């Protein structure tokens, strides 16, 4: 369901400020005389649909609360949390050292909670016979060291690399996890020739049309128009297809936790929202939006 929704969404997923317009105000339908608590949730574009689904269900139970969910990217949400312009930051990556220091300088202790898991899927054109790659092969492909499909057992086609823009949590995760083999501060970079796509939609579209292309996106975007590549941790490990089960059991090698960040020990509506996200109902919503529940 989530995949379908995203495909129809404008490609202006991240940077265009377009998303600011997509701010979803969830109205509780309570009498206007009642005092309402307002909750600002901001951050990862990967998680914006999840956040909205949570907010809608939460408001049905707590009609006195107003919730606004916006995207903009994980870093945008974290910056807003530190600056006090949002109450909860959605993030598809852990805090960076830099951000911890910024928070510390302002006397804020950021509390993090893992609320769901996400798998990053490597996709190629359906006509590409390559269907399984090791992490090392993926690394060399995206570093620009392997330039033709022939090298990894495919036809003699050039490889066209598709990556997300640098403001995407998915970009950073893929770089640190695949290119730098888990070392966040490694020297490796995406090949300069890698095309930087403004959205997962753009990656899906180009992969669907281009038999040379290889790209990556979140688990929720999987569609029959792209072929999913199974990934092995190393040469002696089995190739694992990304699915809810394989991400949850941590056998699929490219998966990541999704976080909610709050300022200090949460209280009031923030606390209630966090508890809701982790409740069985909240985790059901995680499944419905095509992510992987933690429980």
């Amino acid at each position, binding site marked *: 369901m989530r995949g379908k929704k995203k495909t129809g969404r404008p490609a202006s997923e991240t*940077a265009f400020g377009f998303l600011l317009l997509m701010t979803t105000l969830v109205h509780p339908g309570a009498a206007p005389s009642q005092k309402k608590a307002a909750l600002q949730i901001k951050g990862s574009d990967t998680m914006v649909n999840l956040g909205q689904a949570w907010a809608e269900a939460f408001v049905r139970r707590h009609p006195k609360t107003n919730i606004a969910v916006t995207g903009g990217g994980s870093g945008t949400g974290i910056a807003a949390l530190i600056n006090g312009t949002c109450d909860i930051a959605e993030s598809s990556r852990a805090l960076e050292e830099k951000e911890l220091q910024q928070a510390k300088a302002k006397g804020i202790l950021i509390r993090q909670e893992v609320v769901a898991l996400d798998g990053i899927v490597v996709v190629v054109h359906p006509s590409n016979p390559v269907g399984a790659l090791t992490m090392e092969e993926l690394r060399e492909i995206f570093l620009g060291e392997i330039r033709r499909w022939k090298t990894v057992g495919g036809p003699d086609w050039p490889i066209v690399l598709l990556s997300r823009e640098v*403001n995407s949590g998915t970009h950073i995760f893929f770089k640190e996890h695949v290119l730098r083999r888990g070392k966040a501060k490694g020297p490796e970079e995406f090949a300069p020739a890698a095309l*930087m796509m403004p959205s997962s939609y753009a990656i899906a579209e180009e992969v669907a049309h281009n038999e040379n292309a290889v790209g990556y996106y979140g688990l929720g975007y999987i569609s029959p128009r792209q072929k999913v590549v199974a990934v092995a941790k190393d040469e002696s490990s089995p190739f694992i297809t990304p699915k809810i089960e394989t991400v949850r059991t941590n056998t699929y090698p490219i998966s990541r936790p999704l976080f909610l960040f709050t300022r200090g020990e949460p209280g009031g509506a923030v606390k209630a929202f966090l508890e809701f996200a982790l409740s069985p109902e909240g985790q059901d919503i995680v499944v419905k939006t095509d992510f992987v529940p933690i429980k």
Partner: protein
Amino acid sequence: MKSSFRKAGEFAIEKLILLSGIASIVFVALIFIFLLQEGVAVLKHTSLGAFLGGKFWYPISNPARLGILPLILGSLLVTAGAIVIAVPLGIAAAFYIAEVAPRKLRAVLKSCVEVLAAIPSVVLGFLGIALLVPFLKRFLGLPTGLTAFAGSLMLAFMALPTIITISEDAINAVPREYKEGAIALGATHWQTLVRVIIHGALPGIIAASMLGIGRVIGETMAVMMVTGNAAVIPETLFAPVRTLTATIAAEMGEAAKGTPHYFALFAIGIVLFVISFAINLTADLFLHRGKKR
């Protein structure tokens, strides 16, 4: 009594107009000062030569590599491609609409051009991704259709309405006597067009082209969607490029304030400002030269 009232009113209106005139100057100055203030700070992290001439753009790495040469060349290449496509086409279309087309067709064409101008660039970008990019890939046998050429085509589309409308106005502004005189002297319609009318309308046509180019170099959305955004120095028009505008749009959202990356994006803004200033200045010089003759 009445006349002093009127005088006061006139005085107020005069000052109000003066104020609006000054306001626009002040705004431009403020924008430039702000850009300068934020952008120049990048020089604390990198030298001017390394910034303008650097071949690698890895802004979020540690340490960040902030070379914008590929971005400058990308912007110039896409713009040059768009000019080559849009200017001749736009001028020819303007001549057709103003001088050749029958009156009924003229009305239809004019409204079509206006509709073209009304298409938001995001929508054009969508059409680009879904139709143009796959078509270019197949038709030209490229590794990917996300190329500078795709961007040039999109931009040419966007510049066309400006070029056509303003050129057409310039052609219509050529005094009727010139045309009548030429025809009375035995010139054919074609000779009148290329020898007489084009000369009269030239300053306007150049201004139209320059305005079109100005529209093109600042355009962001559609370009970002179809050019692939790879920060490599482009070798041909049929390779992916990353433009200055797309870089700012794609990265500003997440650049933390006060980082080299943030300052570098403002510095890119200055570079864009300087480029469009140079274009406007050239247009002005051309116009004045045209007038003196």
